């Protein structure tokens, strides 16, 4: 027996679902046209009116929106309600590091929680569970969504944040936590620590792992399930939209159910932005159907995935997307923190304009990005004594850490060891 959070909507026949999507899409377009200058201009440039979009397919006539568009209208240009109606702001960054801010109304926040409650219920989380939330609350605001949704479901929340793996394990044993919500990399670290400290698997009571924001490959899932003796599920969100909550796996683990009553998904060719046929891999493009505060029309998420519309054995009728393991842009996710290489370039330029060449080494561990090393070429005429070298490296390390929140290694190397391609990215397996 499948347990649902909102059975009626989760099992809505597909035909009715698409009718509901059309109804909500039209409302979204009507509102965006009336309230957001950016979208109104888009329509006007195309000589279209919202009522020219008569079907979900017609939506393709409108061009995609990118993170750069959001940044261009920073801060409040794309809000569709006055600030008074907004209850929460969320920050993000465009590929070049420009800031983005999204606003949510009270209803948006409620919808969002409902989505997470659905996803949690779909993985088997219930009122009996104790959920240990081990995300960095400062860098990943989605952590709060885990808290609130767990409370909505009625489970017990233990927000352990970024306490060390040792403390996490201690709490896990003391509280008998049954659910671990964290990034796959931190879960991996906890698993290793458990083995190293000789804590028996019987001493921890975990049943379920909820993992995000980076996607889990099948190997990573296998390792985590085996080493923590859990069922591991991916939870997916879009940083600029709602994160997490857009999609998540059910107990069948055969793709992530996307909440189609709130989001209309498409898959497009990342180069031409043209829609692809069903089952082809492409970039996920999402139109929000219920967002009041900040509507997104055909927003390019940057995540590469495929969509599967066949029915799922769990009984939910929503479409399933494949875990997005790749990006259409060069966004790097390292230990759950999103970094654009462009951002690193800008930061290096700020801290040490004399640096001419550098490369990024991404070290992987258990199939996950674990560490970034920035190898910087000695600047010309650099007095490479011990003191100067350390001063420069420390300065760069501190500057990067302050800006992106991730500790990185910085190493000065001879120019000749670097490729002539500036800012080359090397994945070190």
């Amino acid at each position, binding site marked *: 027996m499948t347990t649902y959070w909102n059975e009626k909507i989760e099992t809505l026949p597909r035909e009715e679902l698409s009718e509901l999507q059309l109804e909500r899409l039209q409302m979204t377009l009507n509102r965006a046209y009336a309230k957001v200058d950016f979208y109104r201009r888009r329509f006007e440039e195309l000589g279209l009116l919202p009522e020219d979009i008569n079907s979900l397919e017609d939506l393709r006539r409108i061009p995609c929106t990118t993170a750069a568009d959001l940044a261009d209208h920073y801060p409040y240009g794309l809000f569709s*309600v006055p600030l*008074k109606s907004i209850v929460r702001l969320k920050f993000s960054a465009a590929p070049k590091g420009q800031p983005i801010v999204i606003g949510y109304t009270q*209803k948006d926040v409620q919808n969002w929680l409902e989505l997470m409650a659905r996803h949690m219920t779909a993985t088997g989380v219930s009122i009996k569970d104790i959920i240990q939330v081990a995300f960095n609350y400062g860098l990943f605001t989605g952590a709060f969504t885990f808290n609130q949704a767990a409370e909505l479901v009625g489970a017990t929340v233990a927000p352990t944040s970024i306490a060390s793996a040792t403390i996490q394990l201690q709490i896990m044993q003391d509280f008998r936590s049954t659910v671990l919500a964290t990034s796959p990399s931190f879960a991996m670290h906890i698993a290793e620590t458990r083995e190293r400290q000789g804590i028996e698997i019987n001493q921890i009571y975990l049943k379920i792992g909820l993992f995000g924001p980076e996607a889990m490959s099948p190997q990573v899932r296998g390792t985590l399930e085996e080493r923590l003796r859990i069922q591991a599920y991916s939870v997916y969100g879009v940083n600029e939209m709602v994160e997490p909550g857009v999609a998540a796996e059910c107990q069948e683990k055969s793709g992530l159910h996307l909440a189609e009553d709130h989001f209309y998904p498409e898959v497009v060719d990342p180069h031409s932005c043209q829609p692809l046929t069903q089952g082809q891999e492409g970039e996920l493009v999402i139109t929000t159907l219920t967002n009041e505060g900040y509507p997104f029309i055909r927003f390019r998420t940057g995540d590469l995935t495929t969509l599967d519309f066949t029915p799922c054995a769990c009984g939910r009728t929503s479409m399933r997307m494949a875990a997005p393991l790749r990006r259409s842009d060069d966004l790097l996710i390292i230990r759950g923190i999103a970094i654009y290489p462009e951002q690193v370039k800008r930061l290096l330029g700020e801290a040490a304009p004399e640096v001419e060449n550098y490369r990024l080494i991404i070290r992987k561990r258990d199939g996950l990005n674990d560490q970034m090393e920035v190898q910087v070429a000695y600047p010309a005429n650099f007095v490479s004594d011990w003191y100067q070298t350390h001063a420069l490296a420390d300065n760069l390390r501190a500057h990067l850490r302050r800006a992106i929140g991730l500790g990185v290694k910085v190493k000065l190397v001879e120019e000749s060891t670097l490729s002539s391609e500036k800012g080359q990215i090397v994945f070190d397996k």
Partner: protein
Amino acid sequence: MLRVKNVSAYYGNIQVLRRVTFHVNKGEIVSLIGGNGAGKSTLLNVISGLHPPSAGTIFFERQEIHKLAPDKMVRLGLLQVPEQRQIFNSMTVTENLELGSYSLPKKEQKRMAKSQRQEIYALFPILQERAQQRAGTLSGGEQQMLSIGRALMARPRMLLLDEPSLGLAPLVAQEILEVTCKLRDNGTTVLLVEQNAQTALEICDRAYVLEAGRIVLEGTPHELLANDEVRRAFLGKDYKEKWER
């Protein structure tokens, strides 16, 4: 139960409805709210077949109805109670009610009319007292009750109510709305058009907000009453700025 998809309508050259899509589930009271000239009444008239749509489809219980004549819709169980009552002033209350059952088969009409009438009197006791009075002599509220009662004679499965509280004293309006709730509880689905959004939101299950012929919002009364845009619309204020002080 009712599904309206991409419906547009014109009065001459003026487009009143711009691709309206919405639905009403069985057993719900759904209200359409919006300002003057938003297209609410036109939408009802399009659904009941009184005004032809220029585009779009309408399904009533999976049957396409947008090409049917109004009388066919009545036979399907979809009835409109018109704005401003439109009862026959020179006929008695009973005669007005009997007219309502014309769509039923002849035999049934005779058999049913009486019991049907009793049900309506149970809903509106005042109509029984006035049974032999000419409809034109009734008060506004009573006329509205008669208008609804007449529609109920055809035993509709879905009622389209157009501004039932228009021009009525608040207490009478309240009574009409309470009856609407009773009808829903007895299994009749209701689509309600109201200019007084406050009262409509008191009784409906869901509402759609219509603005210049387009649907811009949908939600439960709770959600809509908490929505600043809806609240603002009542206050008649229009804030253009993102920064409000």
